[in-house]
């Protein structure tokens, strides 16, 4: 037993230093030189001040902005300090209630729009921080946003289409629209 004890303790210490301190430090050193923007959270700057991260969704509920995925974080949506999904099961009545509430809010903000609502716009994202919505979910909101801003629907639609990111390398993932970037572009649009 004692013959095994020394290697157990010493090799644990050595491997800990190697994999727990040196390895993360080396990775940090490399990426802070090669990819500093990404390593630090892909912050978006406006007039030199960070207004958000390109990868983290923000809460929007004003009709003149595009809304993102519903978020189940607490105590407020898109809490990037405490990520969580809703964990509601498919047959849980609370899921149905939550989805109905979001449908009602979307309909109330855009009366007369009878198009079916794309599913990603009324279901909570996995992280509670999803920065994207599907192109369908963005196009669904064009009418409301154009009206609220007094812009031509066509102009807003073109802006959405310019912000559609296709699949990576044409294959991976799904087409998507980054809501924060779209809304910043919208604010910059001269009506």
């Amino acid at each position, binding site marked *: 037993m004692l013959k*095994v004890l020394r*290697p*157990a303790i*010493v*090799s*644990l210490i*050595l*491997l800990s230093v190697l*994999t*727990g301190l040196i*390895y993360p430090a080396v*990775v*940090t050193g*490399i*990426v*802070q030189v090669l990819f500093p923007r*990404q390593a630090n*959270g*892909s912050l978006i700057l406006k007039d030199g001040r960070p207004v*958000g*991260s390109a*990868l*983290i969704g*923000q809460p929007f509920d*004003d009709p003149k902005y595009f809304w993102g995925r519903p978020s189940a974080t607490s105590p*407020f*949506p898109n809490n*990037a*300090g*405490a990520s*969580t999904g809703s*964990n*509601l*099961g*498919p*047959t*849980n009545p609370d899921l149905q209630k939550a*989805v109905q509430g979001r*449908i009602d809010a979307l309909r109330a903000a855009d009366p007369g729009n009878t198009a079916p*609502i*794309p*599913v*990603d716009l009324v*279901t*909570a*994202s*996995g*992280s509670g921080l999803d920065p994207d919505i*599907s*192109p*369908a979910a963005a*196009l669904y909101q064009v009418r409301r946003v154009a009206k609220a801003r007094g812009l031509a629907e066509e102009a807003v639609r073109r802006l959405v289409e310019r912000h559609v990111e296709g699949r*990576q390398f044409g*294959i991976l*993932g*799904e*087409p*998507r629209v980054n809501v*924060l970037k779209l*809304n910043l572009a919208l604010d910059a649009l001269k009506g």
Partner: protein
Amino acid sequence: MTANGILQLVLYVVVLLALAKPLGAYMARVYEGRPFGLDRVLGPLERLIYRLSGVRPDQEMSWKTYAIAMLLFNFAGLLVVYGLQRLQHVLPLNPQGLGAVSPDSSFNTAASFATNTNWQGYGGETTMSYLTQMLALTVQNFVSAAAGMATLVAFIRGLARRSAQTIGNFWVDLTRTTLYILGPLALILAVVLVSQGVVQIFGAYAKVNVVQQTSYDEPVTTPDGKPVLDEKGRPQTKKSALTEQVLAVGPAASQIAIKQLGTNGGGFFNVNSAHPFENATPLSNFLELLAILVISAALCYTFGVMVKDTRQGWAVLAAMTIVFVALLGVAAVSEQAGNPILAKLGIDQQASGLHSGGNMEGKEVRFGIANSALWATATTSASNGSVNSMHDSFTPLGGLVPMWLMQLGEVIYGGVGSGLYGMLVFAIIAVFIAGLMVGRTPEYLGKKIEAYEMKMSALVILIPPAVVLIGTAIAVVAVGGKATIFNPGAHGFSEVLYAFSSAGNNNGSAFAGLGANTPFYNTALGFAMLFARYWLAIPTLAIAGSLAQKKIVPASAGTLPTHTPLFVVLLIGTVILVGALTFFPALALGPIVEHLQMLAMK
């Protein structure tokens, strides 16, 4: 499924299988001590580690010494992880000033990471300091994986050697795995992940001013942080303006790379690889997915090389891949079909060029249905347990797939090392069943399988189901077990069954609605993980020791060849039969009945 969805799944399987041979051949060189290039660069470091820790690398061990070394090393690791969590508030690298982790949660996490389960009872960014993440969790991600791979290599040596008393040196296998396999792969993967947007920074959480100010109901608390209740006993809230967003960051990429490669799965953030800072783009998702299975798949080839018959390795890999692809299909189709209850509300769940449709609750837009179903299947095939979508919100059959893959014993690729040694034990059972049918003494790779090997194999097969089913049964009647079930009805039972399936097979994923960070679950699941890991590893090493001593019997007309399609079918049949017979009654009470209820609510 959409055409692109199928294309993404096929691409994944093709790349995975294409990598099995080159990586497998490389690992065989590492374990057989043949030159492979990197040993020239890192050789001095390897020898320094041996010298300081008093290891004589040429001195081999009996199976008992090997097992004691492995257990002692894991136990020392468990103590360190526990201690670091309890003391993190007085240790450096804690910019958020997070407090000490509770004793039961610390025990759970220590057991979880030492056993390569990485059940996430804690909420990453709100609980663990940077030092704990690195020196406790990242370290165990490396060494618990390396210990699993070492155990496998010892087992293979037992099969390959004849009339031998020893099965290798644990310290050498552990060190070489870490230095030459896991270390370099993790370093490369971490850097590539950061290029996609995964964070790697030691500073404090970033603060930004949001674009649109919103208001929210802030819970009212007393000065010591307790919620204030109104006269009806509900927590009081007040309207507050939301002007800022705090972005949790940290040295994440370095941990994520190894948590994927080492089939660990414990996330840096609470929502694991659904978090955009943990899994930023479809490419990062593809690479993290690949990292889940690539070592386990490649080890099949390593096994073939080491027993000097690569067809044996391909046969095992084929059996794993067939089961994987079949269950992947079930998960993907179920999730794409969406939730009929929501369809009733007039929502568009039909896939088109403009959205992926399907059951999007708990999923991220950039991954969509195909990649979420693929991840859920891969992470539970391997005993990885990381997630990129919330399994609790999957459709009943979509959630049954990951649950059942765990219950099969984590042998469809499985954990690094542990998956293949589990599968090889199933192979022993398969030749035994075949031997019974024709009335011959069964043999595997020229080794006679006798009573001792069968007793040990039976232990390996029976312990996890016993832990899972008894644990679930206790939890659904105990007060502490029932108290934190989140979803009502059959789904609530599924949450508990999933938790014990995960802990009892060292997976680590969860139906995360279940409030598992309680003294009851932290303790019960902690012990489940310890049983499931070591009561399997020890009998496995015992088989290795016994087989190593045997002679090799030359194959004769009555020998069942173990590299043929017939054997692949026999092996799959054995795995499925054991898994189906053991768990069907429990599955019927959970996901199956929920599926029927869901159809009825349409």
